[in-house]
Every structure is written in structure tokens, then in C-alpha cells.
């Protein structure tokens, strides 16, 4: 699994952090997404897929 994020699309809703806190974080000043792991371990696959599905701005792309 490989994740890419689009900071320009991100609206800082925080859904990704709620779904997969090991994989995503948010910048303190404006809440824009920070990718913690570009290639997460298998144990994080389901959370990561959820995060991508929940993202209201379609800012997370997951390639498998």
C-alpha cells in the first residue's frame, strides 16, 4: 500500500486522524494533513482505507 496526499485539497476536517492516527497527523497551525507513513504496515490497511473513504475533500489517494 502506498499513500499520497494532496495538501491543497485538504480541508482539515480531521477525519483521517480519527480513522488512522498512526498514519495521519495534522499541522498545529492550520490542521492541514501530515502523512506519517507513506507505506503503512498491513495492520494499518483497514484504518487507512477508512480514512481515505471518510476524507470529505478526497485529499487521500491509496494505491494497492
Amino acid at each position: 500500500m502506498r499513500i499520497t496526499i494532496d495538501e491543497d485539497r485538504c480541508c482539515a476536517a480531521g477525519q483521517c486522524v480519527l480513522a488512522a492516527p498512526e498514519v495521519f497527523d495534522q499541522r498545529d497551525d492550520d490542521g492541514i494533513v501530515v502523512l506519517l507513513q507513506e507505506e503503512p504496515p498491513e495492520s494499518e490497511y483497514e484504518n487507512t482505507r477508512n480514512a481515505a473513504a471518510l476524507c470529505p475533500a478526497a485529499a487521500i489517494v491509496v494505491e494497492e
Partner: protein
Amino acid sequence: MTETTTPMPTVRDAESPLDPPPEYQALQEERPVHWVRFPNGSEGWLVTRFDEGSQVFSDPRMSSHRPRHDNPEGEAGESAGTDESGLPPLFVMMDEPDHGAYRKLLTGKFTPKAVAKNLQPYIDRIVDEHLDAIASTSGPVDLIEALCLPIPCLVICEILGVPYEDRDGFHGATEAMMDMGRSREERDAGAQWLMGYISKLIETKRSQPESDGLISELIRIAASGETILTDKDLTGICALLLFAGHDTTAAMMGLSIMTLLTHPGKWEELRENPEKIGPAIEELLRYLTIVQFGLGRVALEDVEIGEAQIKQGDLVVVAMPIANRDPRVFTDPDVPDFDRKTTRHLAFGYGVHQCLGQNVARAELKTVLPKLIERFPDLHLAVDPSDVPMDAFGTNYGVRELPVTF
């Protein structure tokens, strides 16, 4: 206006006050998007399914600069924002890139991390204090007055730096403004009171440059001259944060407690399995979807959605309460089920305008419900469920009074 156009359903069945109006089901089954007559007499598209609703909210061709659709008959043309009051339009009514530029000034305060660090200890303390006060009575107690309204009011006051002793004023004005059962004059008077109140508060805070809270921070940002935010924007944004930040969560909290008390086994399920609170809150958000008349968008060009040929300039309303009950996405959609695999829903909207304060709302609900259940394990309604007065015309659907014994 043609008399034969289907009206948008707005009246709930008195026997099932937590379900959307019954006419919605047939509309949803028939096709995803219908041409309807809105409560104010204007006409446009109504989206009743989940996927098509998500699509409308995600499509940049759908503008947030929209007229109201949910106000009373004969009042079509009223803006959904504050245009008539002479203030600049609110960013929630703007499209990109302006909307995002304003939103980014605020988002850092509303992330799950910021809420956990800056607000959670405060929420824990005030919830405990309010539960203590309830426990000191012999009941029955109205939980709206004793818990569901004070907690969101205190929290938004803490965030913004608004004096809590002003709550009767700002809550009363918000209630008037959001109640589509009241006259235009009453609603406008509520909005004007709120704008006047916030303007005065901003002036007071200007003279206290060191004061805490988001309002003071925004005043400093505007004064720096380095951002999109001008002094003129401040009143609208601060008023928006104040009214949107408390009435919504109060409504959701009251309805959530009512749901737990009127669906056999749900209260006990959370009492025995407190770890389910996270998914339970998402499910309650889906099931209750308080923005009962939906949210509108305006097509910036011709768009086809759900086989509907939407023309440039058409108003498109997503009926989130029924879209969140779409059987194509949710098995047994009319049953609250805390074990669902998905936590997707449109209760906070979707797309780049999705609710800014959603993580504050989650933190409040996630604190109040478990503490209430733990403190009063045998709590129950003091009246018959059919006698609980509902806020039938509120933009945010809610419970007016929730009398309980414990």
C-alpha cells in the same frame, strides 16, 4: 410555480419523531433526484440518496452561494447568509479559493488534537459539575435545561472568549433566527441582535489586547493586515461561530439521549459496553441528522447527477436526513446499530465545507453520554415519549424539553 410539483416533505410522523417525514421513502425509492417545491415556494432539485448527495457536496460546480429554501411560504429569495444585514458574505457561503483561505484561519483550533489538548479537561470538569447538580435534586429534571444546552454554551464561550452570563441573550437570538416556524421579522430580529451583540463584544475586546479566546485572536490577525481577514469580516465570522457552535450540539445531545431512552436496550448496551461510544456517536449522528431541511447548493453550470439534468443556476438541496437512511449504503437504515462496519454519514455535510466544529461536537457527546450513563444507570423518561415536545420547525431538529427521573 406549478401546483402539481411535489412538495419537499417537512412534516414528521408524530408516532416516530426521530424518523424523517414518511413521504421521503417513496421519493428515495423512485429515483435519487427529484424536482420539488421547497417550503418557501421556490422550486429546485432534492437529492435523497447517499451517493448522489456526497457527489453534490464534493462537486466544485456546485456553489455554496445559495438562497434559502427552508423558510416559510412566500419568503423565497431570502439569502441563506447575512447579505441583507449589510455585512460581507460569510465564508460558509463562498466557494474556493476564498472559502478555504478563511477556513484555514480557524481549522487549527478544531482538530481532534487541539480539542483534546485545549478543551477536553474543561469539558470533563463542566460535565461533572452539571451531573453533580442534577444528582443533588430529587428529580424529575429537564435534561435540556440542566445539561444539553449549558454544556455546548459553556464550551463555545470558552473557545471564543464570550461571557457565559450572556447565554440567555445569544441562545434566545439563535433560537429565533433558526426557527422556520417564526415570522421573518422575528428571525431577522434574532440575527440583528446577535450581530449587534458580537459587534459590541469585538469593540470591548479591542480595548483589551491581551485577552484570551478566538475572537481576540481573530482581531489580532485582522489587525496584522497580512491575511484575507479584514475588520469587516470579524462580526459575521464570530457570530457564525457562536450560533453554529452551540445550538447544533445542544440539539444533537438531547436527541441522542432521547434515542437511547426510547430504543429498548440501547442505553443498557452503552452501559455494559462503554468502549462502543465512538461508533455509537457516529451512528447517532447518522440516525438523527439534525440539519432536518438539508443544505443547498447552486449549479454553476449544467450538471447531470443521478440522471437529473440540472441546469446552470438551479438550486440543489441534499436532504441529509433521508440520504443517511439510504438502504443502498446502510443495512436496516431505520435502526440505530452501534456495530455497523462503516462510520460514513452526511450529518456534518461533506466536501470542503464539512462542519468545522465537528470534533468539538464529538468531544462533547463523547464526554456527556458515558458520564450520564455511568452516573445515572437507571435514568428514564419522566413522560411518555409521545409527550416529549419536539422543535418541529428548527433548522436544527431537536427536543425542547426532556424530563427524566433517575
